[in-house]
């Protein structure tokens, strides 16, 4: 009697119930699959570094650290020194950040603090669209529109008025480090502005209200309270922008003039690490030549990896310091 009155589930084959119990109705497989996929994403990041390291063994053995300080790049004599390219990358990225930071911060402040609600979304979207334009389209536009209409006249003017400064030395050609830097600054604007806008939005409302209540103007609130409060996040945004600038390839290759030299002039054509890889990789005939280009890729990888680690840590720190409830 007592046995019959118990609720009976539809009977299943014994193997099925055992199977279902042991594997939690398939959850064990699902969990394993998700862990596998997650681990794969991590592994790829590590594998990139490993492959670049392995495939640059020849130049690392032959040149050692002189690879980074050598100024001669000659596939015929098998001498490879990457300094002009490293210098070009650092110089153009630095100028790009110099141009983009004030503008990007201005955008972030405008979008987070000032813009009326109806303008905030569409304007923010337009700025983010700058990041969606393909690099090669930037290059095309810069090469045939920006350089002749804006860069060349500006460069001539700078050279005519300020040629006593080494950075404005002539002769002036169209393609130049200045052109590359300006295009880069446009390309990294959305990174800097959207990350720092999010930083501003994460700052508790009380910070603003306290400053305003003490009689500060809105600008004083922003510059003396909000910016110091979110400084590490803003710094992270700038470093993220710098990382993008360092690795940007096609647009830079099209307007920088591809001329490896170590002059200080920003009006001179230059060369960057990413550009020489793009230009010479598919034509590299010997193993040493190709591996030297891969080693340049390795240097680029290490620099951007390092910068991204720092930047993300900085941005995460701001986001973590603020309890969720306190956000605006």
């Amino acid at each position: 009697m007592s046995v019959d009155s118990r609720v009976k589930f539809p009977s299943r084959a014994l193997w099925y119930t055992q199977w279902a119990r042991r594997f939690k109705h398939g959850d064990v497989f699902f969990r394993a699959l998700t862990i596998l996929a997650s681990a794969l994403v991590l592994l790829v990041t590590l594998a990139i570094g490993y492959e670049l390291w392995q495939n640059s063994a020849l130049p690392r053995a032959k040149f050692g650290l002189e690879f980074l300080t050598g100024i001669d790049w000659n596939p015929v004599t098998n001498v490879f020194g990457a300094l002009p390219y490293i210098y070009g990358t650092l110089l153009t990225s630095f100028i790009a950040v110099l141009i983009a930071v004030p503008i990007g911060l201005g955008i972030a402040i405008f979008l987070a603090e000032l813009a009326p609600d109806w303008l905030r979304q569409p304007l923010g979207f337009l700025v983010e669209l700058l990041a969606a334009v393909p690099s090669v389209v930037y290059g095309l536009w810069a090469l045939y529109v920006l350089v002749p209409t804006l860069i060349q006249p500006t460069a001539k003017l700078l050279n005519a008025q300020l040629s006593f400064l080494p950075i404005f030395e002539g002769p002036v050609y169209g393609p130049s480090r200045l052109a590359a830097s300006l295009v880069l600054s446009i390309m990294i604007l959305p990174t800097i502005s959207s990350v720092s806008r999010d930083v501003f939005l994460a700052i508790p409302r009380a910070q603003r209200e306290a400053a305003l209540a003490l009689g500060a103007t809105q600008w004083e609130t922003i510059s003396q309270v909000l910016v110091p409060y979110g400084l590490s996040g803003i710094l992270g945004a700038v470093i993220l922008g710098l990382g993008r600038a360092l690795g940007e390839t096609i647009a830079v290759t099209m307007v920088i003039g591809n001329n490896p030299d170590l002059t200080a002039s920003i009006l001179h054509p230059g060369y960057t690490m990413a550009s020489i890889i793009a230009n010479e990789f598919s034509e590299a005939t010997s193993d040493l030549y190709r591996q030297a280009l891969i080693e340049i890729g390795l240097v680029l990888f290490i620099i951007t990896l390092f910068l991204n680690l720092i930047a993300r840590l900085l941005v995460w720190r701001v986001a973590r310091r603020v309890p969720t409830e306190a956000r605006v």
Partner: protein
Amino acid sequence: MTTGSFPQTRGANYRRRKFVNGVMLTLTGVATLLAVFPLVWIISYVVLEGGRFLSLDFFTQLPTPVGVPGGGVANAILGSAMVVGIACVIAMPISLVAAFYVTDHPNTPLGVAVRFGTDVLAGIPSIVMGIFAYTVVVLPQRHFSAFSGGFALAIIMTPIVLRTTEEMLKLVPRNLREGALALGAPEWKTSLQVLLPAALNGVVTGVMLGIARVAGEAAPMIFTAFGNPFFSTDPNQPIATLPHTIYVYAISPYKDWHDKAWTTALVLIAFVLGLNVLARVLTARQAHQWSGN
């Protein structure tokens, strides 16, 4: 009581502060306009220059040699679709499944590592991804191929899809998930049949943003997909892509190739920006969907 009882509001110092405030706030607005300006400049120029040679032939014909009028970039359109398709097939399952893990376990060591690793992966230059695809796929095979191009793009795409999907899964209210689990559904059924449909708009958005991003990548194509003047549907053969075609046309010394570069750029930018606008609309809808909760 008049304002005169606050002497500081009349002082030169006060006026200076008001003035600085006005100037700086205006400058932030100017900065925003300054950013929108190149966007408008680029788009209008591409539309005007590229639109002149736009015709149906441009989508259906193979490229013509220098000096021969007409012709199109049909092979590059097909090639881009193929390479991006390969990238989607590789990247989508991995990033979607990983997104489930990261959403469910954001604070386990693996969860933190993956979220961090994804952010870092997103910052690695695309040309480095190209080199990676070259050493992993092209070198062992000893020839350029559409597959190696798709492989490179898949790695560029993964962090974008993963992060967007994660953000969208996080928006799904907790009680939906708890309700399904309380009814006795296993976790995988909850994830696939409750969470995924609820966040579908967002997941589609992530995929579209990923496609939009990689469809415009020219740098890794140079030494993976390599380019091909003819039609090809063989993933083992070199293949033409739109961004690489623009690059080759743009740096050539021929005037008629420059014209074609602009028209190809118009095709590419219409596709990429169109996807971005569509993604934006879908995201707004997704955020709106749960805003009552």
